[in-house]
């Protein structure tokens, strides 16, 4: 089996991406530099959106991998590997954070001297100061890279050794890991996005970021799985797995809607000026259109389209909705970050800068993930639960398959 999995790597399944991703990253870099020359402030904000987009997808994958270990899931064994390989991009993300830290003075108003006499700043100063901010950033990445080393490293080690104890130790690490994950993701979201407008606060912000991350990761994993299913993973995945991915995507879109509405609802209902200002900013002028677009693309359309069971395993629908959710997730982060830089109008004229920064981040992450995918077997070849996953892939009992023709035995 090991050889078979390795043999797949000789194939041309990744040839197009091998060429495309460096071009994407290079073009993104050039575009970003051009953007920085034209409007440095906007480019930094656009870059922050792109960085958060890449980061949340990778963090969503970390959550997926750990939850599979925690629940000792068998169905997802094959899918776990592509998700694990996304974690190989975490060191790249740590590097990609540098421009954000270098541009702090532009991005985060609270770093400016002019704000330091503000009573609201003075109250938050023990938390919101540059050294602690940088220390926390390092701590988050330390936690994530450590968790990734456990759930990815041991899984790769199991490919060679086949030691079932590794599965057990990954499960044991995932339980405390989930606590570390929850706190680090919440605080990272608060640090890097919420403090852009440091007067405003929402206790739901952390889980809001997580909800978007989980939905975006499910969307990415669905697309990657359909892509690999059409190539080197053929025969290793079945309807049951795609149906489950569709269900998870559906569920996390609903979870996002639930959290997003709850956040809005409490602010709307209480009507306290220090909280409503943030929502009003996103409901004024053409930002209202972005807010509506966000609600439609992240929840309404996926909810309606993915509702029937058959649609969740219909590849064009699954890939289409996954792409829509990824688009919506970008809009979501744009909606969180960009009104701080452009409170009056949506900067449609500068969309090319946003696109360039996104290409840069997506290209860089894509190269890291693809390299990892090619360097190792595409599914955990010696995982003790592999058989369970393969049986689930080809099992019976799917009602859609009940067809009169099946009667002949």
């Amino acid at each position, binding site marked *: 089996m090991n050889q078979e999995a390795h043999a797949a790597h000789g194939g041309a399944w990744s040839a197009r991406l091998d060429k495309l991703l460096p071009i994407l990253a290079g073009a993104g870099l050039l575009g970003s530099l051009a953007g920085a020359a034209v409007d440095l402030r906007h480019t930094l904000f656009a870059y922050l959106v792109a960085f958060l987009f890449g980061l949340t997808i990778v963090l969503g994958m970390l959550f997926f991998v750990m939850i599979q270990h925690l629940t000792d899931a068998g169905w997802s064994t094959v899918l776990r590997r592509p998700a694990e390989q996304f974690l190989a991009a975490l060191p790249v993300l740590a590097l990609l954070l540098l421009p954000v830290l270098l541009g702090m003075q532009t991005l985060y108003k609270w770093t400016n001297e002019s704000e330091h006499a503000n009573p609201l700043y003075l109250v938050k100063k023990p938390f919101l100061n540059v050294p602690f901010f940088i220390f926390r950033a390092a701590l988050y990445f330390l936690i994530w890279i450590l968790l990734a080393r456990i759930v990815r490293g041991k899984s790769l080690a199991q490919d060679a050794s086949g030691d079932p104890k590794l599965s057990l130790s990954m499960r044991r690490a995932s339980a405390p890991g989930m606590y570390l994950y929850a706190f680090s993701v919440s605080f990272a979201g608060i640090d890097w996005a919420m403090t852009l407008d440091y007067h405003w606060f929402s206790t739901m912000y952390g889980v809001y970021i997580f909800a978007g991350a989980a939905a975006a990761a499910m969307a990415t994993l669905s697309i990657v799985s359909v892509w690999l299913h059409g190539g080197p993973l053929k025969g290793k995945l079945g309807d049951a797995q795609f149906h489950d991915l569709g269900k998870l995507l559906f569920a996390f879109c609903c979870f996002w809607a639930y959290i997003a509405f709850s956040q*809005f*609802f409490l602010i709307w*209902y209480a*009507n306290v000026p220090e909280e409503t200002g943030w929502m009003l900013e996103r409901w004024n002028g053409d930002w209202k259109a972005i807010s509506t677009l966000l609600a439609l693309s992240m929840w309404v359309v996926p909810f309606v389209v993915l509702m029937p069971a058959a649609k969740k395993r219909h590849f064009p629908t699954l890939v289409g909705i996954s792409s829509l959710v990824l688009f919506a997730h970008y809009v979501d982060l744009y909606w969180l970050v960009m009104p701080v830089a452009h409170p009056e109008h949506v900067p449609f004229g500068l969309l090319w800068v946003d696109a360039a920064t996104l290409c840069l981040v997506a290209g860089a992450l894509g190269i890291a993930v693809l390299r990892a995918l090619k360097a190792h077997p595409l599914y955990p070849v010696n995982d003790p639960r592999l058989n369970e996953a393969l049986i689930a892939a080809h099992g019976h*009992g799917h009602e859609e398959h009940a067809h009169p023709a099946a009667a002949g*035995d």
Partner: protein
Amino acid sequence: MVAEFPREHALLHAARGLRKAGYLRYDVQTPYPIHGMDEAMGLGRSKVSYCTLAGALTGFSIAVGLQYYAQAIDYPLITGGKPYASWPAWMVIMFELTVLFSAFGTVFGMIALNGLPNWYHPTLKHAPMLGATDNRFFMVVDATDVLFHEERTRALLLELGGRNVALLEP
């Protein structure tokens, strides 16, 4: 008419055989759910999800109607400086009633589709049938099936491997 089968595979085979022969009104009684029986009997997709959807739409409409009528028509009252018809405030009730009526639709739809409550069935008087809750597998062909014929159905069941074939009193 009831026939006993020694193993689940034999029962699956018999179910396929009856379906192939064109029977529509037959059922199996087994100690546990048999994997693949839905397909063997050609049951297709359950219609319970439509009951759930109907329940969801009913609950949603009731929630909207109730709150709109109460707060905007019958007793309009300004609360917290909000308009009379403030849909965000209704969302919680809309969500809860949608879920509640979906559950009603699912449970009662399932009961109705199963033909329950059913106070009497001829198999209740057939003593060996008790084994269906323990370790025995039964096939029951309803006499109301258009293809039902005492001799031919008995012969088919025997041919499919059935044992202890018996015609039950209605």
